[in-house]
């Protein structure tokens, strides 16, 4: 369980680092702003933790599929808040940007859930076909 969690965390950390690095480059080139290094590192660690928690909760066996799917969304909702603390007014000058960020997180999660659900539905169908 811990090994799996750490593996997911490592993957999330790498992905988050790459994405935020790209965002920082864009901010630097377009706006000329620099984001403090310490804030970035802590931010990346926290975002990665939120993603890992979300995946872990989503994949829980109990109590049931619907509850774990809803629970999986909760840690993701922290990501826009973490990003707001890191980037401040550079990105989140207007409140509606925060709401857009929330909506994007929820949308990304919904897409991920749909992809996973359809893939496993197909897998179950294949297995049922083999039973016939």
């Amino acid at each position, binding site marked *: 369980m811990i090994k799996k969690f750490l593996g997911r965390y490592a993957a999330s950390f790498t992905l988050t680092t790459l994405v935020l690095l790209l965002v920082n480059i864009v901010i630097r080139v377009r706006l000329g702003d620099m984001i403090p290094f310490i804030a970035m590192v802590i931010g990346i660690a926290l975002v990665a933790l939120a993603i890992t928690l979300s995946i872990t909760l*989503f*994949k829980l066996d109990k109590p049931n599929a619907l509850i774990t*799917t809803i629970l999986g969304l909760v840690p993701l909702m922290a990501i826009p808040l973490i990003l707001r603390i890191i980037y401040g007014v550079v990105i989140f000058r207007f409140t509606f940007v925060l709401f857009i960020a929330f909506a994007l997180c929820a949308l990304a999660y919904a897409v991920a*859930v749909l992809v*996973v*659900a359809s893939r496993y539905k197909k897998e*179950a169908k294949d*297995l049922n076909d*083999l*039973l016939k």
Partner: protein
Amino acid sequence: MKVELDQQQDIKELEIRIRYKERDQQFERLLAFIQAADQTIIGHQEDKTFVLRPGDILYFESVDDRVVAYTDKDTYTIKQRLYEIETMFPKPLFIRVSISFVLNVTKIAHFSSSINGRIEAELTNGDKILISRAYVPQLKEALGGRLK
């Protein structure tokens, strides 16, 4: 598949002869099924000991430090470890589906998937067993042309 039955008074023990063109999956499964029909496993219930036939067992589960065999009506504690059970019986009949379950594939009623990416096997007695993604390929292989 054609089945011929031939009663003879002079033979000493039951004899099964299979005529085949090639040793394909169906052949291997049939062979495994016949071989398993003669096998038994010892199950314990408190201080009582029972002889169990593989065909009666729905699945084996590893619980804490022991292995439990589930039949339609009862549960029995088994001395063997789960990996030993896996190798004890012919492969296509009993198959590992997760870290703590070995399933009798002939007892699967149907499969279902859930929204959070889980596959469950519902057995003939209504029990639901979670299938690990890692074991799906070998389960598919075991089910290819399953014996009814």
